[in-house]
């Protein structure tokens, strides 16, 4: 074990910092919430934040790590959301424990979303760049459109229809998904605890994947597809891997999200939501998982904290968004940041060097 710790590369050390950050945030929020020391508004945001953070992490796998611009992440979220709802409802009579039901429905959501990811991914992976982006956008819209036409009822058996509630042919029971009107009367199974566990799980999957043989292959394809092929990497396989894993994780987050509200409509998971998640990723710095986590949390809270400015709220949000992009990409600012980073890195290196010497001494 010691051996392993010592062998930690910089990225692994980086990951430890991220985990520490997440645990710290969890501990702080949990204790504040249980001491009623934070506002209802903040408490209400906790679950959505965990869902968005998970989504930002998983989208980072596609956009940052795999280097593909996906504009349809919300589509997978929505597949997961509705799958989760249906599974939770079906389980309701037989499984009494709420958390267990949530867990099973989230796993099912992840599975079905992964399947959707595969169905979408196989054709999509033939394309590149902006073409891939537009096709993921199209798939997001198609998924939304299909869900807008999906009617699901449960009366002991499951009924599906693509036309209307009447054609479900239900005998009593309950309509779970009512076409464009979505689902209502959802049992609120999600909790902050579940959300944090999902964040940690997502983080674990993504960071571990990135720092493995498969992850390197994914990044190789991103950096230079032709070179990756030339060293024998099946580029389609690894692009698809990133895409499907991200879809599965998005599906789980979708289920968590949906089961936090008692009503949900397919329209919620449209292009704008996909963009919202993308904004988290880009603002946090592409491929920078920790940055994505922080920006997802901040940007979910920001519009709520801006409520005091009333009608100008969304306008200010837009201005903030543009300003941040302009600021963070400003050459002058970049240079300063670079300077700071090199200085820090140098310090890091010095430390590492010192460590190394110490280590070497011990062996001698």
């Amino acid at each position, binding site marked *: 074990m010691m051996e392993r710790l010592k062998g930690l590369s910089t990225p692994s050390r980086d990951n430890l910092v991220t985990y520490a950050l997440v645990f710290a945030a969890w501990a702080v929020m949990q204790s504040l919430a249980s001491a009623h020391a934070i506002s209802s508004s903040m408490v209400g945001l906790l679950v959505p934040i965990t869902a968005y953070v998970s989504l930002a992490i998983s989208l980072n796998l596609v956009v940052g790590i795999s280097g593909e611009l996906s504009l349809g992440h919300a589509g997978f979220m929505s597949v997961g959301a509705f799958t989760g709802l249906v599974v939770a409802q079906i389980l309701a009579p037989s499984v009494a424990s709420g958390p267990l039901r949530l867990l099973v429905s989230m796993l099912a959501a992840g599975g079905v979303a992964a399947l959707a990811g595969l169905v979408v991914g196989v054709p999509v992976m033939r394309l590149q760049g902006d073409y891939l982006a537009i096709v993921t956008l199209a798939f997001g819209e198609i998924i939304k*459109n299909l869900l*807008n036409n999906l009617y699901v009822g449960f009366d002991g058996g499951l009924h599906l229809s693509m036309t209307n509630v009447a054609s479900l042919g239900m005998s009593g029971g309950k309509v779970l998904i009512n076409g464009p009107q979505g689902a209502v009367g959802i049992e609120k199974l999600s909790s902050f605890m579940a959300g944090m566990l999902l964040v940690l799980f997502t983080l674990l999957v993504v960071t571990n994947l990135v720092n493995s043989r498969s992850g390197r292959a994914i990044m190789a394809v991103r950096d230079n597809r032709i070179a990756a092929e030339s060293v024998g990497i099946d580029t389609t396989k690894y692009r698809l891997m990133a895409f499907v894993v991200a879809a599965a994780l998005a599906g789980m987050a979708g289920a968590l999200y949906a089961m936090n509200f008692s009503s949900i409509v397919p329209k919620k998971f449209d292009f704008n939501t996909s963009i919202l998640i993308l904004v988290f990723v880009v603002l946090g710095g592409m491929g920078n998982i920790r940055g994505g986590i922080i920006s997802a949390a901040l940007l979910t809270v920001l519009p709520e904290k801006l409520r005091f400015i009333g009608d100008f709220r969304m306008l200010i949000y*837009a201005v903030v968004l543009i300003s941040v992009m302009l600021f963070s*990409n400003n050459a002058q600012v970049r240079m300063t940041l670079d300077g700071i980073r090199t200085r820090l890195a140098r310090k890091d290196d010095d430390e590492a060097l010192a460590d190394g010497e110490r280590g070497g001494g011990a062996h001698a």
Partner: protein
Amino acid sequence: MGLLTNLINGISLGSVYAIIALGYTMVYGIAKMLNFAHGDVIMVGGYICFIAMNNVGLPPVVAVLLSIVGCTCLGIVVERLAYKPLREAPSLAVLITAIGVSYFLQNTALLVWGADPKAFRSVIDSPSIKLFNGQLTVSPVSIVTVLACVAIMVGLTLFTSRTKMGKAMRACSEDKGAAQLMGINVNTTISMVFAIGSGLAAIAGVLLCSTYPTLMPTTGSLPGIKAFTAAVIGGIGSIPGAALGGVLLGIIEIFAKAYIGTQLADAIVFAVLIVVLLIRPAGLLGKEIHEKV
């Protein structure tokens, strides 16, 4: 007759998409950015025209010109303030900024013009043309839209392939540094691209609202996305492609609504996009550019 009616409706809708798509393609082709705020410039164009006609009482032609001028200026200003500082930035940063601009325009419109939709009165105020005893009607707006679409397409094609400025735009799109070495002022050229794109957006906005007479801050969003899809179907960056893609998309949408169902029309439109891209990865008229190894 139903078929013909649907075809006419499809071409009419498609021509609106085509004009929007031409603006998209123009900006994408040269500035290499997905300008998601394009749809909102359309909306602004619609409002300017509406205000000029309804509140100021200007004649339609003047209102349209005013709207073109207004949007052109808006395009240049937005480019200068929001996009120009990002010339060296990664394309995703520009994309997100464009989305910010889109939110900004929508919410500004909301504050300035209110949430209530406006009923847009068509700029072409003559009755529908009736054929076959009134079984078939063609609205004059549709005819104007189709003509405008063709004119714009031809004009843009000639401009980019024949004129010096047009070629300079293509040079800038590839390598800004090398273009500068040729004596091309990259900033002016890109401003020009946005000016043209936004001017087209104004025309598109006026025609869109004349065909579907409602105007609100979100009016441009969905047509924007559809037109973007059209541009990709045609081969993004290709001018005739944008026109072709737009018209095809309109026809497909109307036919899908008429013969398959209004509910699935959007799914079908997007499915067609995917099928087209799978068969021709660079769109119908797009050139597939293989990276030389």
